[in-house]
């Protein structure tokens, strides 16, 4: 019975995250802490596993279709991994109430951002669409800078320094709170580094795997991952994310977004109350 409920919760978190492009991490931690009474740090460990699972499945497809920029992603992964190492190391030193405070603040920030965002139609990616090929560089073109090497067709990467700072920060936040960190990486790559949104999203998705793996290993060694909880939840999230990506074009995202904002606000307030030890 409890296994079924865990899987069902994972399906809901995975489907929600996939439909709204946020990943499941934001919902898994509150689900496990409020729904199943897990300590926050254990919930973060399980969430990291779920995040890797969904990232690997999606990034595999993105890489095969050459939508993600592997070179740029690997260059920035160096810094998300460093951030994850730092975050996972300090996560075990921080008071759970402080983690709740940070998580509550993050949920409310995302809720406000989503409430203010204009609806964007999802873009379908075609296998033979040359414009999304991140590797269409002419073999004989001379290299001038590192940025040229990291660029793709139709865009040139800029502000690598901001990308490095943003990636390191995303790694720290990911390891502390069990999220993928796409809410930091995608805007940094798209707005600061000049990477097209579609490529930024795919590349961020690919980077999430190594970021979460770097910290998940530390959680695992320090006893922060329970296999009996992680297994059913990860399978649920995988199924939910798979279903969500297939249903995306059939669902009215406007109402779903409103519902998601309400859920985020409620959960964020509960997290803040927990941090202040008010109520349950």
């Amino acid at each position, binding site marked *: 019975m409890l296994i079924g409920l865990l899987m069902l919760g994972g399906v809901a978190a995975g489907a929600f995250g996939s439909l709204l492009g946020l990943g499941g991490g934001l919902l898994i931690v509150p689900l496990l802490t409020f729904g199943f009474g897990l300590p926050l740090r254990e919930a973060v460990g399980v969430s990291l596993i779920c995040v890797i699972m969904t990232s690997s499945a999606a990034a595999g497809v993105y890489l095969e279709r050459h939508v993600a920029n592997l070179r740029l992603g*690997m260059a920035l992964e160096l810094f998300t991994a460093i951030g994850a190492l730092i975050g996972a190391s300090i996560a075990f030193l921080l008071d759970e109430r402080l983690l709740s405070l940070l998580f509550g603040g993050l949920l409310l920030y995302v809720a406000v951002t989503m409430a203010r965002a204009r609806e964007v139609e999802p873009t379908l990616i075609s296998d033979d669409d040359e414009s999304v090929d991140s590797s269409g560089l002419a*073999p004989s073109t001379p290299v001038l800078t590192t940025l040229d090497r990291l660029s793709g067709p139709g865009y040139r990467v800029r502000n690598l320094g901001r990308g490095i700072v943003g990636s390191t920060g995303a790694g720290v936040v990911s390891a502390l709170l069990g999220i993928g960190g796409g809410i930091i990486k995608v805007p940094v790559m798209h707005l600061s580094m000049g990477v097209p949104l579609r490529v930024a999203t795919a590349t961020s998705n690919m980077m999430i795997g190594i970021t979460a793996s*770097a910290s998940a290993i530390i959680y695992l060694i320090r006893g922060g991952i329970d296999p009996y909880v992680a297994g059913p939840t990860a399978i649920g999230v995988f199924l939910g994310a798979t279903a969500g990506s297939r249903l995306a074009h059939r669902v009215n995202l406007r109402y779903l977004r409103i519902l998601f904002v309400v859920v985020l606000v409620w959960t964020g307030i509960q997290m803040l109350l927990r941090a202040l030890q008010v109520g349950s």
Partner: protein
Amino acid sequence: MTLPTRSRTVAAERLSGRLLIGFTYVAVALLALGIVAMVMAGISPLAGGPALDLETLFDGLEGLDPAALLWLGLLVVIAAPIGRVVVAGAAYAAEADWRMVTISAAILVIIVIGVVSALTVTV
């Protein structure tokens, strides 16, 4: 010095993508088996699972122990992105793109530092 050729980047991306997808399906299969074994053994997910013990893991797999199956599945999940970095690094090495090989190696070194620090530093 030349720009990265289309063929070497495409090959690295394709190999990396296939590896991720393959690992994901193996992980899903192992976790699903583990869940079935949990249900058959009547184990509650909130019972508190055993810590990972690599020495007894394979013995547990032979006896279809739920925790062993789940742990192996979780290890495959964690290993997938790391394997992707190894495969991409190898693909770049085959094309003598040493800059990307260095980046791949540096990522792996950071992960090793994390493992060593988690094993040696007590909190």
